[in-house]
């Protein structure tokens, strides 16, 4: 399996709105904490270390 970098969200605008709503009114520290928890929850959905490594690479915007 490899990281899916093609469009995969069923309703992208809804997800984006949910994401912003979750952060609404939070302090910078609380937002950072939420993001960290979210990354961990999402990572657990993926489970596969190889795919996660590819996701990390994709997120870092490094070319190779």
């Amino acid at each position: 399996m490899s990281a899916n970098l093609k469009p995969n969200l069923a309703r992208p605008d809804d997800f984006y709105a949910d994401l912003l709503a979750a952060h609404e009114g939070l302090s910078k520290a609380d937002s950072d904490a939420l993001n960290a928890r979210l990354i961990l929850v999402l990572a657990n959905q993926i489970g596969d270390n190889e795919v996660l490594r590819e996701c990390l690479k994709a997120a870092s915007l490094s070319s190779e």
Partner: protein
Amino acid sequence: MTKLFETPLYPYQLSADQKADAPVRHPAVVIGAGPIGLAVAIDLAQHDVPVVILDENDKVSWGSRAICFSKRALEILDRLGAGDDYVNKGVLWNLGKVFFGDRKVYEFNLLPEDGHNRPAFINLQQYYCELYLVERIRALQAEGKQIDIRGGSKVTAVEARDDHSRISVETPDGPYDLEADWLIACDGAASPTRKMLGLDFVGRVFEDNFLIADVIMKADFPTERWFWFDPPFNKGQSALLHKQPDGVWRIDLQLGWDIDKEEEKKPENVIPRLKQMLGEEVEFDLEWVSIYTFQCRRMEKFRHGRVIFAGDSAHQVSPFGARGANSGFQDTDNLVWKLKLVMDGLAPESLLDTYDEERIHAADENILNSSRSTDFITPKSEQSRIFRDAVLDLAEHHAFARPLVNSGRLSLPATYDCSRLNGADVTSLPARTRPGSPAADCPLGEDWLLHKLGDDFVVLGINRDVPDSLSAHGISLKGLSLKGGDVNPFVKDRYLGNEDGAVYLIRPDQHVAARWTTYDEADIVSALGRVIGKEL
């Protein structure tokens, strides 16, 4: 009452070597009577190699230091004749609790796997660990083994020569020299031998200090391991509480980097901290207190000709995960059978290079694990603290996050996967007993498999006939055939998998060398040649 660690156990005595005209040559000299030096010497003596141990001190470890001894260490100690002492005295624990701030975020049960003679871990003060080894040495001496432990003997110079070393020793009666065909340096993390030979010790220092205290509680406290992240009594830092025998409790308090060590160590500063942690009403006596900075580093090579390093002198890890003494015992386990074969002319000297390869692989694994624990426990950047706290917050609510909590990982023995000594494999047999792995224990009626293996080369037949004994390359091998009721579910699960029979060649350190599904003497002879270094 004098504490055990204040009593001389092997006081200095004048030795015959000091009166000799020329330096006396010994087959093996061990520098350092810490747990690892003592274990090396016992193993050598059990193999009938005369051995001299030199230590500048004459007592056991000052304070308890190491407290957790792992299953593999206990199995090795069984072979050295001291396992029962450890287990009878040690504290067994299974329940751990993790606190974050003022909340308990979860608890866990170690639930050790069934079908092993020894538990996953026991807690025991390092001074008992060393005491039992010294007692074992006394027993070996009574049996007539040549094992000489010399206290008050400080090594001041080591000169490594082609086929021996020259060692200078300082004693209350003045200096003398002696020589060793083989020198094993077990002189600890600050190893003077390493320095005298100008050898490197590279790695990472964790910029943090830990106050380590042993207290004697006057009332009962549960036999559990409690670990706090960011507790109210030690804001922004961590803390650990762990039980040892005799009502002694280990307390670790992280202090941070910029502190005055001498100030922090004073009882008038330590006791209020501990009261905050344990509760004002809890009564205790302070047995020992010390402050440590932790490091993870190792030598580039453990073997330098006829000088061999083992234990903390060769590699140092932070204590999270209890890998110091535990891995040091595995060094000795790996080294001594090889050294004995080389001394007897049955194996080429290059066999000792595989001590380097196998134990460096293990040291790297241990350093990796303890560095990761240290990074979790003491986050060094804002972002790593954010993630650490996120894991802990999630762990309170969701099981998935609990395996990410890292307050020290169970010390497990290394599997020497890439070792040049490994022979044939059959991959349909269980992965856990593949060549390079430590043989897994199994019950055999009233007895245990590892006990039966002992420290011989063993041909283990499971539902396969193997001879009771066999001789090849000048070495006698022991045969062990398991059949009928002995092929119990543990043996099947650990050694057969879906196969109906198997043959294993097992090394004297109880690691698997090679395995097959049928018995053929020629296979054994060739795998034995390989494992004693004939193909290096």
